[in-house]
């Protein structure tokens, strides 16, 4: 068996199946409506989940003060957030030790890095992403793989994107640009599906 055998087999298998896509209108309504109408859990269950979340988060905070273990990636916002990056409200107040007029807040990449560092102490690898100064929006992808770093090539890796929006701030007589994190998504970490 060689690489060409694999290539041939994959092409043949891909051609074996008949794909008949449903009309977009059906996909866009039925599935979305189904998602929207998914029955919500009972209130007591939601309250119990909230209590557990608070307890787990509190425990993690206590542990992090003692030995700074890795923060659970499940704390990262889930993917596919229903927000509009160009108008969404900030979800993070910004780095606590940086004054309002600091130039670092005018750099989308530095703000995104500070945001992710505030949630995950371990470093991530940043992709190129896109910073659209004219539109005042930015999307910056990142990846992180604990398992690979630990020598396990088949372990999980994580990737996501931080979305930012620039909101100009008036300070005395000048207007300074400031980037805000307005969203965060990830393809792997679906808390609601774990």
């Amino acid at each position, binding site marked *: 068996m060689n690489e060409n055998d694999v290539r041939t087999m994959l092409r043949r298998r*891909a051609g074996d199946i008949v*794909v008949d896509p449903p009309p977009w209108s059906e996909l866009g309504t039925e599935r979305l409506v189904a998602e929207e109408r998914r029955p919500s859990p009972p209130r007591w269950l939601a309250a119990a989940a909230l209590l557990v979340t608070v307890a787990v988060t509190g425990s993690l905070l206590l542990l992090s003060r003692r030995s700074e273990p890795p923060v659970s990636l499940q704390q990262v916002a889930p993917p596919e957030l229903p927000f509009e990056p160009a108008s969404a409200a900030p979800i993070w107040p910004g780095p606590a030790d940086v004054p309002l007029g600091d130039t670092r807040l005018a750099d989308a990449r530095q703000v995104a890095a500070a945001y992710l560092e505030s949630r995950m102490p371990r470093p991530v690898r940043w992709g190129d992403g896109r910073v659209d100064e004219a539109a005042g929006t930015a*999307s910056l992808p990142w990846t992180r793989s604990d398992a690979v770093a630990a020598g396990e090539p088949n372990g999980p890796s994580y990737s996501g994107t931080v979305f930012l929006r620039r909101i100009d701030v008036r300070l005395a007589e000048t207007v300074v640009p400031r980037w805000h994190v307005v969203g965060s998504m990830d*393809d792997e970490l679906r808390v609601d599906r774990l």
Partner: protein
Amino acid sequence: MTDWDAGLVHLYETRYRDLVRLAYLLTGSAEAAEELVQDAFVAARASWTAVREPYPYLRTVVVNRARSWGRRRQLEHRQPRPSERAVGLDADELWDALATLSPRQRAAIVLRFYEDLPDGEIAQALGCRKATVRTAVHRGLAALRQEIER
């Protein structure tokens, strides 16, 4: 319909089949493949305005969902036997062997030999380093050979 929505619809109409075939190779299940791709398109609507490269983005979503599907299936079934996997299709030793790979190895093999992607793009889709991709492909091929010789 907005411009960006129209772009997504166009992508759906032109690349849906390609993505389903890719998902099928990643999962081995035609039914799951259609589900995964439809879910990916529905999910893409939520973040579509921020997407720079639409097809690679959707491909990455499909690959990640297929890997998650594969991990869940491995947990549920613990490597089904070939006879269980080949339902409805001709017996195919190499296809059956593909089902024995880990989700990441399988994805690396499919993206390399079906999509013909370079290491960098596979690494981006899998969220890992290029070296990891090369390792996954190498070990995946070795595992396929071993499975066939068994």
